[in-house]
């Protein structure tokens, strides 16, 4: 009981700091709208010159639905603590965790959870608004059970993405200038997770690879679920893959951090 207390308190601190920067959050929300416009014009041009009704198996309304939902999902699962972690590694901020009876990973996780809670609530409202709108404009069929499953997979996806970027942040142990690397990693992760367009356009071979990597399950999978493109057995399979990847990523992140910490305590903060 007492022991959990410190992490609950950290969650609260996360909520508080996300409130402190709410303006930033709303502006970033607004910024997700712009790529959707670009996508609209891009896909309109593509579909006008297309020889068939569908492109990569998507009709024009389906493609636009995908663009809107994937933009929202990308925002939902995005992290933003990478620079903070690298700062902690570089400036010795980790010291305060080493000398206190609190773990860095659970601290980061609960802080992230706290920061995410408000975002998640707001974004889920936005998502529901969006699918209602899409339902009226492009005729998306809303299946309530899928909406519930969507929320579940989103929570798993958020945790997956947390683990991916927590592991990537460990490069701070070896490199001092990481901005370019993080930017690359972020964009690459968005592309291969289907955050801009469905990964189907990469072709079968690459798709097969992406199917076993974790990225797709942070964005495209929840979107396809909501978009009625997955059967229930495929949904179950996807969720299983999410869980397996969460376990794997936890192990990977932990071992990278263990190596990094060894280096850290050898040279000092």
């Amino acid at each position, binding site marked *: 009981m007492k022991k959990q207390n*410190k992490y609950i308190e950290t969650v609260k601190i996360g909520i508080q700091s996300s409130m402190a920067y709410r303006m930033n959050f709303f502006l970033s929300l607004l910024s997700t709208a712009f790529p959707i416009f670009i996508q609209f014009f891009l896909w309109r041009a593509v579909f006008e010159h297309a020889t068939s009704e569908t492109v990569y198996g998507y009709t024009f309304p389906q493609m636009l639905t995908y663009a809107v939902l994937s933009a929202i999902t990308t925002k939902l699962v995005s992290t933003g603590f990478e620079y903070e972690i690298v700062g902690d590694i570089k400036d010795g901020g980790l*010291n305060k965790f*080493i*000398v206190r*009876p609190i773990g860095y990973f659970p601290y980061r996780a609960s802080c992230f959870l706290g920061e995410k809670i408000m975002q998640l609530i707001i974004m889920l409202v936005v998502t529901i608004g969006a699918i209602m709108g899409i339902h009226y404009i492009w005729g998306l069929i809303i299946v309530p059970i899928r909406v519930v499953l969507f929320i579940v997979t989103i929570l798993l996806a958020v945790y997956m993405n947390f683990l991916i970027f927590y592991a990537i942040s460990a490069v701070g142990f070896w490199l001092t200038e990481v901005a370019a690397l993080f930017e690359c990693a972020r964009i690459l992760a968005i592309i291969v997770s289907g955050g801009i367009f469905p990964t189907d356009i990469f072709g079968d071979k690459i798709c097969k690879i992406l199917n076993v990597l974790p990225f797709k399950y942070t964005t495209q999978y929840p979107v396809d679920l909501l978009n009625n493109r997955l059967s229930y057995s495929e949904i179950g399979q996807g969720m299983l893959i999410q869980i397996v990847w969460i376990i794997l990523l936890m192990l990977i992140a932990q071992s990278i951090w263990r190596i990094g910490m060894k280096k850290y305590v050898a040279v000092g903060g």
Partner: protein
Amino acid sequence: MCTRVNRRDDSTNTVVRINLSRCIKEEEIGLALIHVEGLSKQFEYYKKELGLRNSIKNLYHRERLIKDAVCNINFDIEEGEFVGFLGPNGAGKTTTLKMLSGILYPTAGKAEVMGYVPWERKKEFKKQFSIVMGQKNQLWWDLPAHDSFYLNKCIYELEDKAYQETLDELVDLLDVKDLLGVQVRRLSLGERMKMELIAALIHRPKVILLDEPTIGLDIISQKKIREFLKIYNKEKKATILLTSHYMNDIEDLCRRVVIINQGKLAYDGDLSHVNDLFSQSKIVKLNFEEVVAEKALTKFGTMKSYEGLSVTLEMDKQNLKEKLKQILEVLPIVDFTIEDIPVEEGIAYLYQKKEGMPDEEAK
């Protein structure tokens, strides 16, 4: 007895740690609260010479160098002691404190704090000590200090009552009641340092390592923090190891000082005896009735200042009496005083020395 292992790479790490923990069991009885023996830390770094050509050369060939940040240091600190830990910049003070707090692994040697090996990072150990680094903040920047304290309460798993009592007491001592609700980033440097101290002491640690707690503070804030530390040390019987570049801090708080230079122990003992180690002279101030020629004085000692009627001389301790007698007989003396060389000068002398003194001498 255990043998010391000189470790060069991380893979043998565990072996050393097992040895060390066996050491504790054997020697647990009769140990000082902080026990440091043969503690050493080496850092690897790469050499780069000036210029573009060398930058390119560095891409494919880097010369690896080893720096002895801390080299075979020994000292013991008893419970309740307030010890000044001094040395010039880069002497290895912070490195030593980091090893004592478990942030760094040593390259060789051992250390025990309250019977724990710091770098094993046992929870019981963490709950009983604290480290404050004046140049690094441990508070949550965006939140009021009060929230940080509360989080610390949860981290250290303190009882509500004990937490509230300690907090009230510390807040009272440092006089920061009105500032508890202010976002930390809006506090002044001095106010923030006081908050850092509260955050570091909220769990009533038995051992406190203070690394430049007064750095950058004005004289009044320095004084307040000093007074606070003095009271805390006395009332709580806390053991404190303090580094500071302000002599006032040290003279006011520490009877004993440990001085290191270039990673080696240069002095360990009473602050007032720093000069005995090397200084063979005393400062003699003379006041005359009428002006005395400079020449007439230099045969007695080295001239430190000459202002007509008042003169300061540095004189040899040996046959000081004889020489003073002569001065009194020959010169028109009104008044004179004999003083020790100021302790700052003694410490500065130890700082400037290229090589630290051998251990035996320092003891």
